[in-house]
């Protein structure tokens, strides 16, 4: 038996657990309608998959998660979806929320279930996905989607898995009953959780007021393949609080503002694990749970297996609740549960107990007296706060002081209110104060974001202005240049694909980075809202993403500044080459930085550095080529190797050739006029120069012409096909000289195309 630590404070309220343990577990008859709130968990509400009038089968998903922290919802029985409405849901405020209403058909037809026999053969994420698809959310009360806690990212190395079977709240016996009746399911669930988390210790805490459950669990644990230690802890409220249980069983404290997973601990409720077991082994989604119905107004208190969505009124009727005696209807335990305004709300995944309280059992709270600073609250506070001080700050709206006194570490256990001799509703004060603080902080955040956005906008406008200016200048220069170029008839076209491509790449990179940032921010927001999860890590991630966005935006900016060079001349090419080089050095620096900090972005930076380098090289090359082609004075030769120009050159040469041929023919034909002779003599050098230019252009062509490469490729392909076809025809036709000649020619052509392609490829690859 391992050591038990203890935590400060705690109380021993009357347990009142016997009442609901007198009868065995019963199943509630099928209710006439089921109301399923879309949000029964912490996080984003699920979005419905069904519409009114749909027939659903038992276990069929009817709503799917809408975010990372969200959960599936399933039809608890077969029937018809009769409504999708706002219905009052169990919530302290008595609010309404969107619900799916199902009218059972009584047939209980299951959807086809798919369990796995050997979950070990599954990939872990697959296993987690199965749990996710079963819609399991923490059944101890918080309702945090379970698979998130079971399938943590690699930053969390779990050394201890704690199973919470403490059930410290008075009245509730649902977990007690579950442990007695279904110990093996729980153990099965623990095994799955242990498989997913690979902890070194598995501890299970049970209060010593549940000897039977402890015995059942110890028995079952002995049969398990893994080493599960059942630890009996002294009865004290709130031992079942996650943080308190961690302290109790391991002696370490979960740091303020962190989650247990941050210190390598995961806490799971027994009910949740039983649900995990059923989900994995039988494929059963979470559609029912054990709920305690007790309280003095109930004549048949006990534990019931209820379908999620069952109206509480059904449960009350089944437990024989006398409506005349019922004065307070509590969902959850008497310490932390909330009073319901009516019995028309459904039971949800987290409803572990319904207390139908009578007037003498729960008398109205006497009016609060003044705090006499007796310190009783301080003695019992499990979070070691100063409740009386917090109460004064909350009352006086001195929220900053309350924060300084760690108000946010209050777990709202109610121990302080329980003992306060002056009957001060302390917890109520704290809830209100926390709400106010959260509101204030949200406003501050909003203001801060607005400020950042505003500044960013100003910066952007400023940047755009300067860029526009630069572009305008560049354009003017280019125009002047073009004018000059036109004059001496030099067609100075240069490769233009590169800066554009870079711009595009940078844009996509920036967009990707931004999306990632948004995602991270959203995750952070969700985590903040749900008050769980590892905020610090998320925040770090957000800031990393922000950095990335900044970097990629800088890159984009740089690319944009090179992009204007759409009609590049040598100067612009030079500029482009220079920018490319700077980019490379910048990226190199960023990479070094990232590597030093071991940021995950290093990998990306490395690859982008490679592309940038090649681009810089290309730019350099283009510059060199342009310079080279600019140097020879002869206007006709001076044409650089752009596709269009090449074509032009080609057709020029062809025309000249034809003309020359025509002229020669004419001369041959005897029309030896002086005119023709002169034409020929004129044409000959022209053709020669054109052909020369074409050759020059072709020599320079391959490195810069993606499209041409393509064209070449397709030409090769076409040639090959032609060859094949011809060969086929030849085979079919037997010996046919014509065909053979054609084939030979085609083969030659194909070879030529191949060679051209190869040359072009070589040229592109090694510029």
């Amino acid at each position, binding site marked *: 038996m391992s050591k038990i630590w203890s935590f*400060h404070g705690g109380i021993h309220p009357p347990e009142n657990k016997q009442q609901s343990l007198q009868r065995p577990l019963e199943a509630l008859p099928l209710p006439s309608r089921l109301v399923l709130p879309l949000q029964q968990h912490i996080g984003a509400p699920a979005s419905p998959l069904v519409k009114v009038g749909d027939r659903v089968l038992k276990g069929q998903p009817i709503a799917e998660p809408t975010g990372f922290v969200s959960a599936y919802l399933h039809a608890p029985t077969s029937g018809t979806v009769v409504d999708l409405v706002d219905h009052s849901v169990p919530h302290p405020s008595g609010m309404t929320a969107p619900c799916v209403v199902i009218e059972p058909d009584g047939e209980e037809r299951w959807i086809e279930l798919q369990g796995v026999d050997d979950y070990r053969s599954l990939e872990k994420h697959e296993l987690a996905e199965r749990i996710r698809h079963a819609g399991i959310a923490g059944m101890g009360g918080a309702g945090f989607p379970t698979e998130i806690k079971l399938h943590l990212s690699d930053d969390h190395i779990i050394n201890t898995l704690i199973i919470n079977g403490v059930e410290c709240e008075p009245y509730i016996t649902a977990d007690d009953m579950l442990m007695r009746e279904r110990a093996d399911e729980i153990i099965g669930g623990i095994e799955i959780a242990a498989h997913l988390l690979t902890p070194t210790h598995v501890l299970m805490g049970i209060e010593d007021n549940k000897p039977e459950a402890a015995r059942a669990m110890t028995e079952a644990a002995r049969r398990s393949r893994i080493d599960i230690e059942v630890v009996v802890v002294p009865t004290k409220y709130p031992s079942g609080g996650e943080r308190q249980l961690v302290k109790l069983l391991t002696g370490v404290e979960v740091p303020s503002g962190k989650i247990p997973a941050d210190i390598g601990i995961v806490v799971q409720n027994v009910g949740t694990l039983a649900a995990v077991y059923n989900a994995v082994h039988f494929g059963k989604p979470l559609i029912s749970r054990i709920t305690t119905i007790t309280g003095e107004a109930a004549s048949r208190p006990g534990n019931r297996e209820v379908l999620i969505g069952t109206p509480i009124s059904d449960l009350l009727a089944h437990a024989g609740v006398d409506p005349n005696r019922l004065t307070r209807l509590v969902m959850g335990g*008497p310490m932390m549960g909330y009073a319901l305004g009516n019995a028309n709300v459904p039971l949800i995944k987290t409803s572990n107990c319904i207390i139908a309280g009578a007037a003498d059992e729960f008398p109205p709270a006497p009016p609060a007296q003044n705090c006499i600073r007796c310190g009783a609250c301080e003695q019992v506070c499990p979070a070691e706060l100063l409740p009386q001080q917090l109460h004064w700050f909350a009352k006086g709206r001195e929220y900053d002081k309350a924060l*300084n006194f760690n108000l946010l570490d209050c777990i709202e256990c109610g121990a302080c209110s329980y003992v306060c001799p002056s009957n001060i509703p302390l917890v109520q004060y704290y809830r209100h104060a926390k709400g106010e603080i959260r509101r204030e902080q949200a406003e501050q955040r909003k203001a801060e974001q607005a400020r950042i956005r505003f500044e960013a906008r100003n910066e952007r406008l400023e940047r755009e202005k300067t860029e526009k200016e630069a572009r305008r200048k560049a354009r003017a220069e280019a125009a002047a240049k073009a004018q000059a170029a036109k004059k001496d008839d030099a067609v100075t076209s240069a490769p233009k694909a590169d800066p554009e491509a870079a711009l595009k790449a940078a844009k996509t990179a920036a967009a990707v980075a931004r999306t990632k940032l948004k995602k991270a921010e959203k995750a952070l927001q969700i985590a903040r809202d749900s008050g769980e999860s590892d905020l610090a890590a998320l925040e770090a991630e957000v800031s990393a993403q922000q950095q990335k966005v900044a970097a990629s935006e800088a890159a984009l900016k740089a690319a944009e500044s090179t992009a204007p060079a759409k009609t590049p001349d040598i100067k612009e090419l030079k500029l482009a080459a220079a920018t490319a080089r700077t980019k490379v050095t910048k990226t190199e620096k960023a990479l070094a930085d990232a590597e030093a900090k071991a940021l995950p972005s290093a990998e990306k930076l490395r690859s982008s550095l490679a592309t940038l380098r090649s681009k810089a090289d290309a730019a350099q090359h283009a510059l060199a080529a342009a310079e080279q082609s600019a140097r020879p004075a002869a206007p006709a030769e001076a044409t650089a190797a752009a596709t269009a120009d090449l074509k032009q050159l080609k057709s020029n040469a062809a025309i000249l050739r034809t003309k020359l041929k025509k002229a020669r023919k004419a001369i041959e034909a005897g029309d030896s006029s002086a005119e023709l002779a002169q034409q020929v003599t004129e044409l000959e050098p022209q053709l020669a120069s054109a052909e020369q230019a074409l050759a020059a252009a072709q020599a320079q062509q391959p490195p810069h012409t993606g499209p041409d490469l393509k064209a070449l490729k397709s030409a090769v392909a076409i040639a090959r096909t032609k060859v094949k076809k011809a060969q086929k025809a030849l085979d079919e036709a037997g010996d046919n000289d014509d065909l053979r000649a054609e084939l030979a020619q085609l083969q030659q052509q194909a070879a030529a195309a191949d060679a051209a392609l190869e040359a072009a490829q070589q040229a592109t690859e090694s510029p």
Partner: protein
Amino acid sequence: MALMRLSSPHVHRPGKTGDVMKQVIAAALPGLATLVWYFGWGPLINAVFAVTLALLFEAVILKLRRRPLGFYLGDFSAALTGLLLALALPPYLPWWTTTVGVFVAIVIAKQLYGGLGQNPFNPAMIGYALLLISFPVEMTRWAGPQEVTGAQLSFVDALAVIFAGQGLPDAVTMATPLETFKHKGALTADELWAQSAQLLAGLHAWQAVNLAFLLGGIYLLLRRIITWHIPGALLFTLFMVSGFFYGADPSNHGSPLFHLSTGAIMLGAFFIATDPVTAATSNKGKLVFGASIGLLIYIIRTWGNYPDAVAFSVLLMNLAAPFLDYYTRPRTYGHKQPQKGIKR
């Protein structure tokens, strides 16, 4: 069915502030009985009178403040204040003096600050200190134990002394041990005791009274109405300091036992310094609070102007209680360090 929508928790430990006060009152009764046993009817008459007055003043002020009378009187805090003040006063104090004391305690020291829980100073001690400053003659006229003075005042006589302004007959009065010791002049302790045989004979009366209050205090400890920190630290400090000086110079200083068993020490340690409203709240704070009171008591008794010093010491430390609380905050779960002081 009318369902109540109340916030959690839905259960509450039985017991109200009034119960706490009642227990404290009950715990003080043995002390009162012992006083009556040794000093006659005076303390009882004083106590009943002071409690009645306290309730009356409280009621008047509550009326003026338009607060529900029954609810606030039912917390018994006013009654307790009246009782504690009466227990601290000389047994046959004239009625008007008591009245002034109770008035100041309830009206000025408590209600003017906002009532129970809002007063920075212990109301009973404010009343006591004010009387001591204002009416030194009346406040230093103590009756001796009846068995020593040999004069027994009947109940009617006692009433007359207190209410009819007859004044306490000289035969009944006697200096308290602390006063005697204070004014011993150049005598050594032994010479002093040799001279005051009467006092020596009556010393056990004062000791018995302190013992009775000690028992009451232990009862409070057992009922967990107070914690041991304040009285423990107070008594321990007083014991150590007086022990130190007694050890160094026994002829000029009282023994630790003398210091612990005379004056209002036990009343102060268990009933007055532990008043939660005006004491430090954290356990560490309580230790410092109690220890400082013990030290101050010794300092004022030995080198100050007044023979006893419980009231002044308690009031001085009342002043420091918020400060102590700010600097002795517990370490909250999940925090490495306790926060200190108050940041804005």
